[in-house]
């Protein structure tokens, strides 16, 4: 049987387990063996996002509006996709600057502004109250329902009772005790709570398992599986509508705004910021969370619709609050164990949110609201106290109590008239106000403190006016007339329809106006104001956090003088002597001791440690109260910044330059090798040309001298020698011309006169020019050229040079007797082929390629051969190739040689040689 005793004992036992886990986690963390240093724990801790709102409220919403509960989970899923770009940046910044909360983050970004930190804290506290109130409400309502087991009737609203008879009040008190126990056992200079994270991870698993179990029981136990359940629901006209998307109130705009709100809330609700950013122990855990967390959301949402539909089918309209279906269904099915588990699951979701949220908030209230005020009001009193850590803890404890009690008050006076989800969204809209200063501040250096202040105030005021005030009005605290008719009857200022914008649902309306003012204020305020020195430093450090390796830019801001001992005293006051001396020892190890007169680096080190305990803004005030000396002027800071960015840029460029240089030098080496090879070839060429030129010159000179010194030589011998001189001179001339030709072709300086020419006529001309050679050697020439003109496009003079060269080679290598040369011209598919066939000694296979190289002459020619220049064939090859054709030799030693030239050109006309004939 479930009586109050059993329920309360179970609840306390469950919280005891959570506390045990937290305690163990803290012990392990102190021992340096973290139990949360893995991506699964990290992901599970993110599921603190799923509060009683998820556990109870999703079903409540689904029971009336179908799939409308989904945007709240689509938002985080979308944000998870952006984790690597946005969250990683925020986490890196937080680590580097030892940021402890979202207020600290905003303040640090905008020049460690105490005003901004305080403002964020106020917004957060006010904004979060509705959210805390719905957790209290969920616990109280579920308790009220469960204690009446086995009857399933909604208890009368607890707010009807006086406070001392209201269970919710006692729930609040118990939570205050637990929150103080959990969260304020000692002051940590990183403000991390490993134990609490471990407990949250556990409870995330617990509530998931319980919710899925209830979903299974409802779907498969109460009904005959999802098919049966949906069929029964479809038969019911009201319920059938829930399963379609058209029921969404506010249409797609409503979905869009809810998705946007939950995206931002997922990142910027204080507890979310805490688990996502501050408690993150390793950036790489983010990678796993990117897909694992959406999976968690998917699973916990799987049975929302089945439970909602089951509840609607089982309970008569209005008999049970749909927000309580999760608990009421096991009760109606007479399953007390499951009902108790459902209660504990809801309790788990609600308490973890309240504990974490209030601990986080109390830290912010202490660091960013109370401490700065105390410092401002009476710094000497503070400075005079030996150990401030007790004071800090006291402030935090009071903060926790005040926040939970404020949540209770909100619940008692406002929250009762709202469904869980509606109240939660008011808080979401408040958290979304931090999106512009943080996200824009992450990417836009120029965003200034003034801009952030203006934007945040604007957004906050709109939020309060369009969401908070109407909520209060609805609860009867202020007249509702201003909601319906606008203040003073001014229609334009109706909180749900500002300036006549009346076709949006209240949340989208609030999001639209608050974001407009927030972003507009931030951008215009930033553009209209000049950032001061520290804003510049912080802005550039935040924006460049992923690019920078060193993060001591703001260390340079301290230029004053202070004794190291004074710094130590200050730190000891906030952290206690033990932690302070540990910290200084660490510094000494890293920097080989510390100076008596603290330098800017040590001052900055102390400031960061202090910031961990009391927030960046307060830390700055504390430090500046003991450091004598002026803060740098903006010009000096600009110089420092410029220098460091310049140095970074310079080294980046240097790196790139050296990479380029490496590539260039590799290229150079290769080019050099190529050049050297070319140089070697050119050397060889010149040497060969020289040799070839000197040879005829030798004969010319020798015979000239002989003729000169022998004037009385016989006429016959004289004319023989003169003939030699003439022949060798001709050879010399030919050689020089060919060398010049070759050089021209090689360098591309030759002019080609391409025109239509008759190839047949050209060959006949060539035959005519070489007829003397044939006559001299008594060789026979057969021409088989067909009887039609053959038109190709080419350079007449060059091509005739080729044919003459081939003919003179052929006759040169013919045997002395019975020399026979045949020249053929015939068409192929797309070419004209010229073949010059001789019956000379033939050419060995290994020489077929070589003979087309410069100055290569066929060895083993018979004695007394007429010498060539060694350039004829290479030049012919170049010419033919320029015409798009090819030239080669077919020959075997002793079989004569066939030189073949193929020139492109379409075959036409009749009477041509059959390619296979002759």
């Amino acid at each position, binding site marked *: 049987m479930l009586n109050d005793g059993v329920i309360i004992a179970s609840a306390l036992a469950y919280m005891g387990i959570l506390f045990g886990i937290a305690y163990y986690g803290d012990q392990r963390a102190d021992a340096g063996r973290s139990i949360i240093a893995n991506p699964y724990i990290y992901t599970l801790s993110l599921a603190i996002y799923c509060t009683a709102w998820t556990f109870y409220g999703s079903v409540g919403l689904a029971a009336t509006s179908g799939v409308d509960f989904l945007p709240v989970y689509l938002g985080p899923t979308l944000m998870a996709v952006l984790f690597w770009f946005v969250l990683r940046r925020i986490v890196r910044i937080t680590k580097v600057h030892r940021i402890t909360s979202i207020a600290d983050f905003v303040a640090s970004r905008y020049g460690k502004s105490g005003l901004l930190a305080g403002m964020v804290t106020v917004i957060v506290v006010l904004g979060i109250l509705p959210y805390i109130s719905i957790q209290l409400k969920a616990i109280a309502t579920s308790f009220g329902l469960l204690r009446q087991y086995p009857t399933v009737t909604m208890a009368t609203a607890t707010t009807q009772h006086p406070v001392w008879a209201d269970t919710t009040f006692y729930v609040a008190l118990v939570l205050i005790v637990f929150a103080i126990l959990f969260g304020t056992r000692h002051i940590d200079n990183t403000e991390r709570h490993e134990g609490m994270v471990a407990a949250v991870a556990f409870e995330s698993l617990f509530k998931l398992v319980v919710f899925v179990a209830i979903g299974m029981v409802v779907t498969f136990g109460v009904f005959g599986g999802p098919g049966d359940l949906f069929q029964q629901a479809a038969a019911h006209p009201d319920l059938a509508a829930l399963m379609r998307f058209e029921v969404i109130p506010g249409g797609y705009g409503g979905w869009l705004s809810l998705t946007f709100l939950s995206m931002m809330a997922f990142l910027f609700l204080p507890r979310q910021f805490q688990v996502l950013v501050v408690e993150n122990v390793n950036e790489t855990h983010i990678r796993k969370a990117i897909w694992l967390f959406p999976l968690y959301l998917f699973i916990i949402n799987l049975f929302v619709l089945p439970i909602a539909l089951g509840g609607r089918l089982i309970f008569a309209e209005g008999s049970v609050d749909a927000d309580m279906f999760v608990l009421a269904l096991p009760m109606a099915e007479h399953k007390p164990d499951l009902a108790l588990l459902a209660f504990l699951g809801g309790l788990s979701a609600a308490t973890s949110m309240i504990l974490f949220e209030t601990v986080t908030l109390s830290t912010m209230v202490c660091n960013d609201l109370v401490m700065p005020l105390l410092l401002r009001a009476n710094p000497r009193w503070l400075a005079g106290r030996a150990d401030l850590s007790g004071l800090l803890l006291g402030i935090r404890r009071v903060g926790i109590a005040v926040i939970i009690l404020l949540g209770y008050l909100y619940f008692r006076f406002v929250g009762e008239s709202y469904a869980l989800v509606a109240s939660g969204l008011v808080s979401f809209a408040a958290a979304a106000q931090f999106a512009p200063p943080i996200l824009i501040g992450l990417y836009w250096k120029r965003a200034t403190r003034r801009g952030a202040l203006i934007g945040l105030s604007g957004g906050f005021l709109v939020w309060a006016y369009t969401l908070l005030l109407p909520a209060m009005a609805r609860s009867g605290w202020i007249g509702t007339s201003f909601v319906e008719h606008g203040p003073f009857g001014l229609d334009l200022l109706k909180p749900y329809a500002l300036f006549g914008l009346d076709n949006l649902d209240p949340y989208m309306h609030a999001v639209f106006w608050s974001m407009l003012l927030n972003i507009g204020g931030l951008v215009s305020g930033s553009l209209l104001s000049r950032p001061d020195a520290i804003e510049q430093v912080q802005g550039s450090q935040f924006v460049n956090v992923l690019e920078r390796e060193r993060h001591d830019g703001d260390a340079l801001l301290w230029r004053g003088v202070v004794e190291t001992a004074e710094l130590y005293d200050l730190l000891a006051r906030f952290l206690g002597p033990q932690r302070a001396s540990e910290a200084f020892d660490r510094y000494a190890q890293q920097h080989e001791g510390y100076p008596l007169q603290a330098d800017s680096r040590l001052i900055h080190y102390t400031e960061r440690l202090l910031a961990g305990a009391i927030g960046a803004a307060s830390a700055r005030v504390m430090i500046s109260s003991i450091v004598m000396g002026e803060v740098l002027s903006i010009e000096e800071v600009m110089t420092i910044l410029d220098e460091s960015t310049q140095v970074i840029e310079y080294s980046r460029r240097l790196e790139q330059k050296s990479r380029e240089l490496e590539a260039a030098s590799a290229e150079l080496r290769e080019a050099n090798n190529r050049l050297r090879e070319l140089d070697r070839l050119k050397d060889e060429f010149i040497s060969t040309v020289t040799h070839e030129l000197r040879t005829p*010159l030798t004969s*010319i000179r*020798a015979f000239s*001298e002989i003729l000169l010194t022998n004037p009385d030589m016989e006429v016959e011998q004289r004319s023989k020698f003169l003939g030699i001189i003439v022949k060798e001179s001709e050879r010399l001339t030919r050689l020089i011309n060919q060398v010049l030709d070759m050089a021209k072709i090689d360098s591309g300086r030759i002019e080609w006169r391409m025109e239509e020419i008759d190839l047949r006529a050209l060959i006949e001309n060539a035959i005519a020019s070489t007829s003397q050679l044939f006559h001299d050697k008594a060789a026979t020439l057969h021409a088989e050229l067909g009887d039609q003109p053959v038109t190709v496009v080419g350079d007449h003079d060059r091509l005739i040079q080729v044919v003459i060269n081939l003919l003179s080679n052929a006759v040169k290598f013919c045997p002395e007797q019975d020399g026979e040369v045949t020249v053929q011209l015939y068409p192929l598919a797309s070419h004209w082929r010229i073949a010059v066939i001789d019956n000379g000694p033939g050419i060995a296979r290994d020489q077929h390629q070589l003979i087309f190289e410069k100055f290569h002459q066929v060895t083993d020619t018979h004695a007394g051969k007429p010498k060539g220049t060694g350039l004829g064939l290479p030049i012919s090859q170049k010419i033919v190739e320029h015409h798009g054709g090819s030239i080669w030799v077919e020959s075997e030693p002793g079989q004569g040689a066939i030189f073949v030239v193929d020139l492109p050109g379409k075959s036409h006309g009749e009477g041509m040689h059959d390619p296979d004939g002759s």
Partner: protein
Amino acid sequence: MANKILVVDDEPNIVLSLEFLMKQAGFQVRTASDGEAALAAIAAELPDLVLLDVMMPRKNGYEVCQTIRANPDWKTVRIIMLTAKGREVEREKGLALGADDYITKPFSTQEVVERVRELLAETG
């Protein structure tokens, strides 16, 4: 008794001019048009001096020079290398291989005759 000269070159006109010059100077002249023919001629009858071209088919002048110097029976043979390649390295290479003198083409006819005479006079 007239000294015996062997003229070796693959250029018939150069051979012709050297043959004429040497005969005119009173030497006994034989000719060869490649390296192997030259060695055969030396083996057939040992000359006093060889005018040896470098760039020739079938054993070039350097190889012929080496072969001559490798044969102790032929050590009395004087060698003058003739080459159209005028680079200093080639001259050095020729001298290192055992040539007694080195003449670059195109040569002065007078100089060739003088060098031949000088070399033959040295050996006596």
